[in-house]
Each structure stands twice: as C-alpha cells, then as structure tokens.
C-alpha cells in the first residue's frame, strides 16, 4: 500500500507533465490544459480516498 501509492502518484505526475509539454509544443494548448486537469482530478480522487480512510480511523481512535 505504502510505496505503491507514492510511485503511482509520481508516475501520473511525470506522465502528465510530459504529455503537457508535448501537446503544448505541437500547438494544441487546450488539450494540454485538459490533460493536466484530468491528471489532477485522478490524483485528487486517489488522495481523497486515502485521506477519508485516515480521518475515519482518527475518528474511531480518538472517540469522536
């Protein structure tokens, strides 16, 4: 669980930035922005899931 998550997010980040540069160099600025946004949304969903898991655990542990 631990190292996989870090590598996944890092891989998504690197791929998104490479695609961004390729698309903006070949002139398609809007598609570049769209891929950046899509990558951001994907990573945000993964992180939000993990953070909600963490907050559930904190809630049960600290007797909220």
């Amino acid at each position, binding site marked *: 669980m631990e190292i996989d998550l*870090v590598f996944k997010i890092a891989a998504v980040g*690197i791929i998104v930035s490479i695609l961004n540069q390729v698309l903006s160099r070949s002139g398609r600025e809007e598609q570049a922005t769209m891929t950046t946004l899509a990558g951001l949304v994907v990573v945000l969903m993964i992180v939000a899931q993990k953070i909600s898991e963490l907050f559930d655990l904190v809630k049960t542990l600290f007797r909220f």
Partner: protein
Amino acid sequence: MTQILQVFSVAMLATVIITLLNKQSKDIAALLSIAVVGMILLCSVRTMQSIISFLTELEKTAGLDPEMMKIMLKIVGIAITAQLSALICSDNGNGAFGKAIQIYASVMILWQSLPLLRSFLELLQKILGEI
C-alpha cells in the same frame, strides 16, 4: 523494525520526487505531499490503537471518570490533525490558511474542555465555600 525503516525511506523518496515534480507541475507535487502525510499518519494511528487501549486500562484501574479520558483523547486528536493540516497548507505557500487552522483548532480544543473546566470551577467553589 522493517515498517519503521519503510516509513522513513518512503518519506525521503517522496521528498525527492516532489522536488522533481515541483518544476513541472506544482499541483501534483502538492497532492503527493498530502498523500504521503496521510499515509504516514495512517501507519502511526494503527499503532496508536494499542497504546490507547492500554491507556483506557490504566484509567479503569485508577478509577477516573471515563468522560475525562474521552475529552483528553479528542483534544489530542484535534491537536495532531490540526497541526499537520496547518503545516501542509503553509508548505504549499498558504501560510494564512495554516494560521487560521491553528486558531480554529485552539478554539475547538477550548470548547471541548469546557465541561472539564466547569466541573473544576465547581470543585473550587465547593472547597472555597467550605472554608
């Protein structure tokens, strides 16, 4: 011991990757830092479960009010999460968010401990009244 070393190495690896991603896309770097903080907190919270069950055992043998234990645990939880979220916000350049979160957390902690403080005040009044 393996888990401890894994956590340290994941943190250092993530720092390097975040420095790399900062040049290209600062947004995903910020998300990665949030994810790593969340993961490390998850690992520590899982170990905290056994520590807190030991604390409840202690409190049972000492005969303390269980309400006090609950309030203390809530306060510790609020403090830890608030400090970490504040640091994450100021790491990504929003120092004002961090400060606002800290103020909010102190107000919440005071609000949680109000019943304790009230019963302490009543105890004081009783003692002073008897004098």
